[in-house]
């Protein structure tokens, strides 16, 4: 064996020894959620490429500062007559930074009488909460608000 070859092999061995423990660490690291989705891809998947418009009709009610990220109350109400021809088709609640940007999709019908939905969501950190509303005429409306989270609640 030549001296040059010997150093090459030594190098590869050093790389392997460096990589193997890193890999075993990777098995122990933070796992990736089963449904990983970006905020932009989530919006595109819902709207199908259309750009949602900002509107005063959509009212998103969340606390500006949430002490506990595990329980953040969110209320979305839309100003709509909810008749057979003009009603809110769907309300989507999205977050900005969680591994899955989609929280819940609610599909309403005129039998609801009032376009409103409220629930409680988990937030991993300070981020924007967004309500994306689909009307029966195919329009998309959007409203968002930033929520400050002091203790993360994901996981």
């Amino acid at each position, binding site marked *: 064996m030549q001296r040059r070859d010997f150093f090459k092999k030594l190098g590869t061995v050093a790389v392997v020894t460096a990589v193997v423990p890193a890999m075993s660490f990777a098995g122990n690291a933070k796992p990736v959620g089963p449904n990983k989705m970006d905020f932009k891809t989530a919006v595109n998947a819902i709207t199908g490429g259309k750009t949602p418009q900002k509107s005063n009709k959509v009212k998103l009610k969340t606390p500006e500062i949430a002490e506990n990220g595990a329980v953040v109350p969110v209320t979305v109400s839309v100003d709509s007559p909810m008749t057979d021809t003009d009603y809110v088709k769907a309300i989507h609640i999205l977050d900005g930074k969680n591994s899955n940007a989609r929280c819940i999709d609610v599909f309403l019908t005129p039998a609801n009488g009032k376009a409103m*939905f409220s629930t*409680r969501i988990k937030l991993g950190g300070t981020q924007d909460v967004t309500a994306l509303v689909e009307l029966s005429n195919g329009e998309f409306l959007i409203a968002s608000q930033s929520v400050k989270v002091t203790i993360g609640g994901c996981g």
Partner: protein
Amino acid sequence: MSKARKSLIKIKPKRYKDGEIVKVSFMVMHPMATGMGRDKKTKKIIPAKYINSVKFVYNGKEITHMTVWESLSVNPVFTTYMKINGKGKLTVTYTDNTGEMNEKTKKIKPRG
């Protein structure tokens, strides 16, 4: 149909007339595990277990259905409005990502 979980349907106000729009909330005791958290003692990943879909059916007619993802809180609450349209019953069905399926019914009795 699997083992029943504690769940509740609340209607506000309690006394309602025919044709009135009332607030309906459905609560269920469910862990809503994201599949990313760890057990504090054993340090093992808690497998994902979250509600997939919820359906509100009133007298055989679907009012609202929802697609749910993991980022809802533990023991989730779903609140919407509903128009009362005669006597009958409201059924809420929910499904799990592990295939668990349950339902809860409440009688609707408009007065006056």
